[in-house]
């Protein structure tokens, strides 16, 4: 049986379909899950509407819901199948989620980790640029490129943090905005805005100067801030030059002896001895 979910296939839609399928006793291997987005223009995949109604209440351990919500945000096409297989197995294997080393549970957690990491990177690497405001409140716009369908689930974070300003975060996987009253989400792919913000120059000054050239650890930096994010970070194009200059700056400092003269105010404070 083929189940086609609308657009990217969100959690509510998967849940409605999964409940109905479960109460009909449909085994996981008999279902082929596809989202419209992933199916693309496949002519032979005429959308089959998900089975509706007639679902008996389904109970699951409390930990399943947040896990399923998170893994349905993953961009891997097998996510719907994995979530349904877990749901199916949980009906008889009640302790399943306690066995992290089970192949399905381990995979679900790997998806969950990846979605969490993506969200965390969104919290970290969104860079707001100021745009002219229409009213009293200042207004900011950002462009971010997430790996997974995480934009809507992170609206709360930005609302809690940036309550007193208007903001819009545009991404290829939809956009969220806040105007002091409502959070809005739109799942249509957005375009990258072209905005300059003078504060970026101060931030770049800070980034270049907080870096310690004597402690170069490029691999460590790239593990945490992979290159795929660099194009949207105003500070990242400084990195190659900072790395290139680091060795001689370090050597320079090491080679240079302390100067024999001391500042005048030191003389006044402590006498001549450096």
């Amino acid at each position: 049986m083929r189940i086609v979910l609308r657009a990217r296939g969100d959690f509510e839609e998967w849940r409605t379909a999964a409940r109905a399928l479960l109460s009909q006793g449909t085994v996981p291997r008999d279902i082929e899950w596809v989202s419209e987005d992933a199916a693309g223009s496949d002519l032979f995949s005429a959308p089959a509407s998900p089975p509706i109604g007639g679902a008996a209440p389904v109970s699951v351990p409390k930990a399943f819901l947040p896990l399923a919500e998170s893994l349905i945000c993953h961009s891997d096409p097998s996510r719907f199948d994995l979530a349904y297989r877990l749901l199916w197995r949980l009906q008889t294997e009640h302790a399943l989620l306690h066995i992290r080393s089970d192949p399905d549970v381990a995979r679900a957690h790997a998806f969950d980790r990846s979605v969490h990491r993506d969200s965390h990177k969104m919290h970290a690497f969104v860079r707001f640029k100021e745009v002219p405001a229409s009213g009293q409140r200042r207004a900011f716009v950002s462009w971010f490129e997430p790996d997974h369908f995480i934009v809507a689930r992170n609206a709360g974070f930005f609302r809690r943090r940036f309550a007193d300003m208007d903001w819009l975060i545009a991404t290829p996987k939809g956009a969220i905005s806040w105007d002091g009253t409502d959070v809005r989400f739109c799942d249509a792919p957005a375009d990258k805005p072209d905005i300059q913000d003078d504060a970026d120059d101060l931030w770049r000054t800070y980034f270049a100067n907080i870096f310690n050239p004597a402690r170069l650890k490029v691999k460590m930096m790239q593990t945490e801030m992979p290159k795929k994010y660099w194009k949207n970070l105003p500070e990242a194009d400084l990195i190659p030059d900072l790395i290139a200059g680091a060795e001689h700056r370090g050597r320079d400092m090491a080679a240079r002896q302390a100067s024999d003269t001391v500042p005048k105010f030191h003389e006044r404070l402590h006498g001549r001895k450096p």
Partner: protein
Amino acid sequence: MKKSLKARLAILSDAAKYDASCASSGTTRRDSSGSGGQESGGLGSTEGSGICHAYAPDGRCISLLKILMTNFCIYDCAYCINRSSSNVERARFSPEEVIWLTLEFYRRNYIEGLFLSSGIIRNSDYTMEQMVRIARDLRVTHNFRGYIHLKTIPDASAKLIEEAGLFADRLSINIELPTDAGVEKFAPQKHPRNIRRSMGELKTKIDEAGEPTLRTRRRKTFAPAGQSTQMIIGADEASDATILGTSAGLYDAYRLRRVYYSAFSPIPDASKALPLIKPPLVREHRLYQADWLYRFYGFGIEEITAGRPDGMLDLTIDPKLAWALENRGRFPVDINTADKEMLLRVPGFGTKTVKAILSARQFKRLAMGDLMRLKVSVKKVQAFVTASGWSPLKLIDRSDLRSLFVPEPQQLVLL
């Protein structure tokens, strides 16, 4: 002519980079949206774990705007770039400028908040007063709910420290060097006894704030993210055993959240009293690993440092592996029956792995495949564990076991 804001930002962030901490975690949850009974309309939030908004090519997290209010300083500490005898370029921010930078950086989501430190100008109280004013204005005037870390000036008055704790998430005082003799030698105007007294006073205030009062049933807020400190490694002769002993003492006596180790790094116009060497980064890394073993894995400091007579940690392999190789009689450990304390001692098992093992083994017998799916490196643990279908008895007795873990020597190339 007065230097531009940008030029001063360059000087005063350069001057702040030798402070290792950039943590923004472990404070109370706050936000500006007006939920949870909080007044709305401000700026900022803290949600438990910190966020690193960028990484510099030195591999360090940039979470906070870490700057000095001024790098003028009346003290002459040999290891410090800002010591009075250094010819480094000097600058100063006004409190308004620090506030403006913090808020504008925060609005653009560059940072989690402010880590403010300062050289000491005029006297300790004058300097501390300016810093407290910045924190107070951020909180009270600007409704700022992001993270604030203030480096307290050791000899500042108790009243100022108390006020700092009302507005800051974290306070810290640097212990500077691992031994009192080191501090007296390299930081002649600082006094180890005063530093410890200040830490003790902070601890008392933090503890008091943690207890509900009878009258209000509400807890006061005082530096909810606690206190931390930093010591410089490699500037004096202190061994790793001495350093870790000092840390353990600090953790126990003052309940510090963190002790930061900062590998002494060459600074421009360095004092002649100090070695001009590459910073001992591997040593610093091993100290952090040992520190972790002490705080989260149930190891005693003397166990970690017993391996070598000179009290230094092995630089080639991590301290947990080194301990396991020294104590082979305690292995292999059966992952299906061993207690938590012993599982935590297996090289290659982290605290999360141990938790997952303890949970899963209630329902099935675990094999090496289970460990693989828990993302454990089988290569690293196989000599130290038994599992369903796996026994390493020959491996653990091999005399060359250590060599299986030591990285390949690097081939030399012609110049």
